[in-house]
């Protein structure tokens, strides 16, 4: 069995999770501070990829990143790098699709954050940066890690947008999900089933991790 699709899927999901982790925390913290009407708008825009069909996300990404599209052609001319039909194109697709999960989890955690803690730190002479890194993030860390696990699981399961922006080329862009589709299409059901089992196993581990983290978070809250 050729393990390339698994390695490719894992590196795509890992890179997307890192990006989504940072972006999600940054934007969730920013949005929580916006005035109410702007918050509602930002919230809709940032959550939209969660409910849009992956084909819509894929189409919009192609409109942006394709070799003859604004961003895609600029990057191609300036750096000589293609942004579609390469393995890392799937990273962009996974980022967009997994982002809302991280964003919403982090936002929920930040909204539940006890502002008295920040105020207490202010009276002690601490800066806003100190408060964010030393008090707010640690207090919300379990939800934030849970959001990252959820985002990773979602990124790993990405198919629709990925198949549009990265396509399926064996040993180049093949992921677990696109490989399952390809094998099924050419009638290799036995091999497809193996990849299905691999996929189910990894996703189940991610969800067990998630449940464990949420359980711990609940216990932590009950004790406080």
């Amino acid at each position, binding site marked *: 069995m050729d393990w390339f699709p698994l390695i490719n899927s894992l590196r795509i999901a890992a890179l997307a999770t890192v990006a989504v982790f940072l972006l999600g925390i940054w934007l969730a913290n920013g949005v929580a501070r916006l005035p109410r009407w702007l918050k509602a708008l930002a919230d809709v825009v940032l959550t939209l990829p969660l409910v849009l069909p992956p084909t819509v996300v894929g189409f919009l990404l192609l409109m942006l990143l394709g070799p003859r599209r604004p961003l895609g052609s600029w990057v191609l001319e300036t750096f000589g790098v293609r942004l579609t039909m390469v393995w890392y194109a799937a990273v962009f697709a996974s980022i967009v699709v997994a982002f809302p999960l991280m964003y919403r989890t982090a936002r929920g955690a930040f909204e539940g954050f006890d502002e008295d803690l920040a105020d207490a730190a202010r009276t002690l002479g601490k800066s806003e940066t100190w408060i964010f890194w030393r008090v707010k993030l*640690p207090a919300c860390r379990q939800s934030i890690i849970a959001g990252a696990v959820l985002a990773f699981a979602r990124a790993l399961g990405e198919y629709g947008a990925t198949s549009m922006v990265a396509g399926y080329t064996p040993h180049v862009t093949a992921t677990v999900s696109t490989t399952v589709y390809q094998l099924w299409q050419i009638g290799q059901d036995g091999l497809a089933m193996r990849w299905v089992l691999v996929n189910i196993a990894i996703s189940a581990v991610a969800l067990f991790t998630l449940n464990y983290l949420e359980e711990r978070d609940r216990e932590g809250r009950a004790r*406080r």
Partner: protein
Amino acid sequence: MSLDVDIRRHVGEFELDVRFSAEGGGAMTALFGPSGAGKTMTLKSIAGLVRPDEGSIVLDGQPLFDSTHGIDLPTRTRRVGYLFQSYALFPTMTVEQNIACGVRAKDRAERLERTAQQIRAMRLEGLEKRRPHQLSGGEQQRVALARCLANDPAVLLLDEPFSAIDEDLRGALEDELLDSLASFSGPCILVSHDRAQVERLCSSIIEIRGGHAG
């Protein structure tokens, strides 16, 4: 040492209009009134956590806030010690780390020394490595107070310090609090809705009702 407060602030239908002075020198000043009277809002104004619409807050002749001169010092430079009703201990830090957060000294050895000093003064020895959720209400109160005092505040604000304490323990803890504050010489304001308590603890009582005092 004295703190002079004369502020107004509108929030929707609610109007805060308070005017009073609090003297230092070991005597506590009570800000007494029912819940919703504006006690906490007054404390937050003094600490710079909320901004009054107009008026002035003057500490020993130095304005912390003065709307006519456009003065509004940020909270972190006001040197106001604030004991929150919930104590607001940092949940992910140990007792020791919480108290160390209050110490202003930059030098590591000095920080450790000042932290140890507060731990001794508040009789928290043996609890250094505990986290806030592993402490009783009275211990949490002492940690929060230690963190405030380690910060070397010029003013101390105590917001309902006994509301998280079981009723039958309050008497003993009131005495403890007075002991702990014996060395503090700046103005100290105690917010409470319990008349008997403020009469036991405070030498002057300011009554606040419906946002109005003084």
